[in-house]
């Protein structure tokens, strides 16, 4: 079936459309710097958006939970074996992606007989100098790096829009609460844009996220749970990752909904 180059290209193109359609309605996950490190957050109907990979690496994901889980476990295994046999300083996202999961994802995507991964991943890291770095990994193994923060969303154009807004803001000078508040505004802006139909593409009926996904902060806080975690360079400990607890999230909710 795929002996002819055209057939293969056609199959790949179909896969692209298939995955994008599946991810279309997924709500944004953002990660931005703040004055003490980096923060990563997203809303979800159940937990499973934000994870800790290693001492100074956080992961955000959207798409099929089982696919996120498989990639998360691969990253965890690689990071821990490397951190144990060498040093925690040798565990970097660049190495995990470039030599680890990105080539494997690409290969999987191009093997058209196998099911593609329905995922978008966002990775944030505080490097050994304490500077925040951000990475976005697509379902086909393509990855990009950012210094000022980044976002993953189902809709590509909404993603570009939020990305531009992130680039315009000096998050690195903001306190945690301010950075989160500003980030949440961008989240809401993205969702509204997504729902306005301005950027609509393809059929949305078969998406991974339910159709009644909240699009305002008020609905999101009411119906879903905000998951947020920080990488804080001033903890004085080995592990810089810390998930925000319920009290902090409640306090944030009050500020954000004012």
């Amino acid at each position, binding site marked *: 079936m795929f002996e002819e180059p055209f057939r293969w290209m056609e199959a790949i193109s179909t896969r692209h459309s298939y995955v994008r359609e599946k991810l279309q309605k997924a709500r944004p996950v953002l990660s931005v710097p703040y004055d003490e490190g980096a923060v990563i957050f997203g809303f979800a109907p159940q937990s499973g958006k934000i994870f800790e990979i*290693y001492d100074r690496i956080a992961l955000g994901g959207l798409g099929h939970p089982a696919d996120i889980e498989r990639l998360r*476990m691969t990253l965890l295994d690689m990071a*821990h*074996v490397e951190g*144990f046999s060498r040093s925690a300083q040798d565990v970097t996202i660049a190495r995990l992606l470039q030599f680890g999961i990105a080539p494997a994802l690409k290969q999987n995507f191009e093997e058209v007989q196998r099911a593609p991964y329905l995922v978008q991943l966002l990775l944030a890291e505080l490097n050994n100098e304490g500077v925040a770095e951000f990475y976005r990994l697509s379902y086909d193994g393509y990855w990009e790096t950012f210094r000022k923060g980044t976002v993953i969303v189902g809709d590509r154009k909404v993603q570009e829009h939020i990305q531009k807004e992130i680039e315009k803001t000096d998050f690195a000078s903001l306190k945690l609460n301010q950075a989160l508040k500003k980030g949440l505004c961008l989240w809401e802006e993205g969702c509204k844009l997504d729902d306005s139909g301005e950027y609509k593409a393809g059929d949305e009926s078969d998406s991974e996220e339910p159709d009644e996904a909240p699009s305002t902060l008020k609905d999101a806080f009411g119906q879903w749970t905000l998951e947020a975690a920080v990488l804080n360079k001033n903890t004085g400990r080995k*592990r810089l990752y810390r998930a925000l607890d319920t009290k902090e999230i409640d306090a944030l909710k009050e500020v954000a909904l004012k």
Partner: protein
Amino acid sequence: MTTHSDRVRVSGDFFELLDRSGYQWQSPLKSLPENKFIEISQGTTVLAFHYKEGVIVAGDRRATAGNAIMYDRCDKVIPIDDYSLMAIAGVPATAFEMARILSHNFEYYRRSQLQSMSTEGKVRALSKLLKENVGMAMQGVGAVSPLLATYDSSQGKPFLYFYDMLGAEFRILTHVATGSGSPMIRGVLEHENLWGARPLEERSEREASALAIRLLQTAAQFDSATGQARPEDKLYPIIARITKNGYQFVPEDEMADLYKTSMKKG
């Protein structure tokens, strides 16, 4: 992709991951006869006791091999995760390796299973490592006798365990000391607890730290393998506390002040 599509793993066991990656924990050296004459560095004093807010863990800084002092800035109190500390007495090579495996074991479990390992699980993990090390211990080249202190957030209290070199675990409700200098201070600890100004578990953070410094100084007085503090070289014992907020080492500037006041006579 890789090994995950054809494997379902739910254990979150770092030992298993190490096995798969080809790592081998030390096995007994089969061809090596038991040898009591090998000089191995293992002199130490580490101690721990319950105080008002949690558990204090302290250790001297000296590493020895027979009569020789090999190193005077050894850190024998090692963070395992945010809520656990291990204090080591015995052969440093084995002890440090154990601490590293244990740390990755706790953290790998917590990250992969999205919940902390239970205190009992943590305690057994160290026991398992010690049991697997029995061969080396019996041959006299890898004996380790550690302490493990951990704060259990779900139960809201700290736990302190002492291990023998074969892996037996003993929960300590008051105080414990191990290493070559420990016999010199175990009696003092007991005496302080029973007939001191206040029982150990009622003492404040500062009182507990001062007592730890004095005990290590006493051990160093009678045991050549336990190092004395040398304030002129900014060389102090290591003191760490575990409370509901996790572990915290006493920083160097605070240590200098603490040492000075603790050493005052009368």
